[in-house]
């Protein structure tokens, strides 16, 4: 066969020996260093790429694992239904190690190397706050599922949004009337002496006061503490209810020592389930919690009145009636929070469809389209319930569940209204330039 086109003729003008060598070197470099390859701009038929900043390792790993399962389940449904704007959705995962410094690098990696359209899925507040400046500088929409008050407070930037889970301030505010009416009027707070605890410390007292109750003592426990008995004498004798938000492995010791301190005559207990996410409530040492009440974003245990949407969501994610994995009954989920991933992805889908999103050049339009959203109806896309979105503070508000631990299960006894948790916005991101 002759070489009529001269493809193999190195003497042909345009393909010199030097050019060929350059090409070989460039190709070789590309092969051995995949990280350096410049990714081509997404084509109209190419998948929409969502960068998932995941806590695969570090202190948030238990949450990260379930956030990943929920994300995969939602994306499968979205893709099976035709994707977003006729394009399939691809999730690109990077582990941030639950570290604020690494989080910022990961956001840069999504924007500049993976060329994702947006970044999504972060839970831990320090990672969100550490990553926010990078997201703002790179002008890449950053949808977090963190529940921290940091987004709504206005201290981040216009590219940071939290449209899938209610923030702690609203959660605390919405459960206060129920505590005052049902648990007791005199409340002692026990909380970790760092920022997560401070949202509770700052926002529960005024909410209780409005409901006719009062905080009689606030006990901040240092994060390094491993024994709690010495703090219990600080709990006033008049206390009707202990409001506890202990987080991390210390919660087991905390509960055990509290039980030993009070025996059967202690005040009532109201806690945030955050401390027991991914932990079996029937674990040895937690017996003292029996009969107490908890806040839950979404119920861990299947409820008698679960909607079809909630049943479908639980089946899709793969959790059984006890909130554990359908493939491993000992693998307890983070049900109270992870629904936020599901709902956030559907908000992203809606905003991308509303803005006619085509690629990174439409990121500003995507932010504006998200800000224009106001309500999300309860249904398959929002199984936890109806939501109201405030575009000025980039924060969503939903109902909260108060559950009683009884017979080894958590049963919802009260559902707050959305209005219970809403507060006067203190910021307006829409005034910032895009």
């Amino acid at each position, binding site marked *: 066969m002759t070489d009529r086109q001269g493809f193999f003729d190195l003497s042909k003008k345009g393909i010199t020996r030097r050019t060929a060598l350059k090409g070989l070197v460039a190709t070789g470099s590309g092969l051995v260093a995949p*990280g*350096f390859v*410049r990714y081509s701009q997404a084509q109209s038929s190419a998948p929409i790429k969502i960068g998932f900043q995941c806590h*695969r*390792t570090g202190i948030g790993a238990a949450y990260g694992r379930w956030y990943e399962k929920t994300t995969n389940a939602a994306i499968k449904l979205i893709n099976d239904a035709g994707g977003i704007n006729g394009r399939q959705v691809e999730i690109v995962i*990077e*582990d941030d190690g639950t*570290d*604020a*410094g690494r989080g*910022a*690098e990961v956001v*840069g*990696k999504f*924007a*500049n*190397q993976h060329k994702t359209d947006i970044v999504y899925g972060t839970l831990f*507040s*320090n990672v969100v*706050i*550490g990553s*926010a*400046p*990078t997201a*703002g*500088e790179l002008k890449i929409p950053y949808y977090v599922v963190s529940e*921290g008050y*940091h987004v709504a407070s206005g*201290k*981040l*930037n216009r590219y940071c949004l939290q449209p899938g889970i209610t923030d702690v301030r609203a959660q605390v505010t919405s459960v206060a009337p129920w505590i005052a009416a049902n648990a007791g009027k005199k409340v002692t707070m026990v909380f970790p*002496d*760092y*920022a*997560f605890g*401070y949202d509770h410390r700052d926002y529960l007292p005024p909410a209780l006061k409005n409901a006719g109750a009062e905080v009689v003592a606030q006990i901040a426990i*240092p*994060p*390094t503490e491993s024994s709690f008995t010495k703090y219990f004498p600080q709990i006033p004798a008049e206390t009707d209810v202990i409001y506890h938000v202990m987080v991390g492995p210390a919660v087991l010791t905390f509960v055990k020592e509290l039980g030993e301190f009070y025996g059967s005559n202690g005040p009532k207990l109201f806690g945030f389930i955050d401390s027991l996410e991914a932990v079996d409530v029937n674990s040895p040492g937690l017996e003292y919690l029996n009969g107490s009440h908890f806040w839950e974003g979404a119920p861990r245990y299947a409820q008698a009145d679960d909607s079809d949407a909630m049943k479908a969501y639980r089946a899709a994610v793969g959790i059984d009636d006890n909130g554990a994995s359908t493939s491993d009954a000992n693998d307890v989920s983070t049900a109270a929070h992870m629904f936020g991933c599901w709902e956030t992805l559907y908000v992203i889908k809606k905003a991308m469809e509303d803005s006619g999103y085509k690629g990174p050049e439409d990121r500003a339009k995507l932010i504006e389209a998200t800000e224009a959203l106001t309500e999300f109806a309860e249904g398959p896309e929002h199984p936890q319930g109806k939501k109201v979105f405030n575009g000025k503070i980039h924060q969503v508000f939903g109902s909260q569940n108060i559950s009683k631990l009884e017979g080894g299960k958590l049963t919802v006894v009260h559902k707050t209204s959305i209005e219970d948790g809403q507060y006067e916005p203190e910021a307006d991101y829409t005034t910032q330039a895009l």
Partner: protein
Amino acid sequence: MMEGSSPAKAYLLHVAVIALLFVLNFILPAYHHGLLARILVLATFAMGYNLLFGYVGLLSLGHAMFFAAGLYGAGLGVHHFGLSVPVAFMAALACGAVLSLVIGLLALRTSGVAFMIVTMMFAQVLALAILYFAPLTGGDQGLVLQQQERVVHLGDTVLDLTNPTARYMVALVLFSIVLLLTLAVVRSRFGRVLIAVRENEERTRMLGYDTFANKLAAVVISGVICAAAGGAYALLFGYVGANFASVQYSILPLLWVLLGGAATTLGPLIGTLFMYYIVDITSGYTSAYLLIVGIALILLVLFFPKGILGTLRQRWVRWLP
């Protein structure tokens, strides 16, 4: 170490490294460009650590406090008092100088394992103080420095530190100054006294040197360099967080220096680069990347017992500073 070394060769090498880093600004893809800016700042932190650990032989487990002193010195100055970027950076240096002087005066009363423990305890005190004064420091969540706060006005010239090129260049200038300063220090008479202290403190004292004063000077220089890195980190990347004061950030510079080669001027850069990229690349393939990192570190210790540049110098490139 310096026997038979050639000053011209050493300075040429360092200038070549700086030139290479300058050229990389124009050719690196955006992600690696941003990552390298971060690495340059953290390599500066490691160089500060190396000065004390590598050349004086003082193993501190609390250097995160100096980095955090700069980070918060600059960050709080901008956030609460509206300081301009240059003034905030000077505040970072001042915080590092005062803290390292006080810590040096107290911790240098000990040596060996006791020095490690005392420095670690002081660092813990600072880390817990940051959490305790959360209304001021932002506690464990930290503080964000807004984009408009990270702009330098020099007459009519505006330097926006959120601009990737400006950020890279500022990081490179800081790194270059500290690299050349380190080289000058270790080649100076003062540097030789520090090495003498490391090799045999008793003999150095017997020769008439005030070893305490020399060690204190080394702690302060090291602390100020680390604080400069911390201040630059806050101003360049806009985040001030308590995690940078944690024990992890005291261990990391030790690891970077050991990997790159303790008592080599370029070792901290090599070690920081290596650790950053091995984590960055392996985490893209598996969530068990720390296992791979661990294996790589074991292999390095086996085949490069004095770190990458330390072993190179021992075996092949004797003149390497």
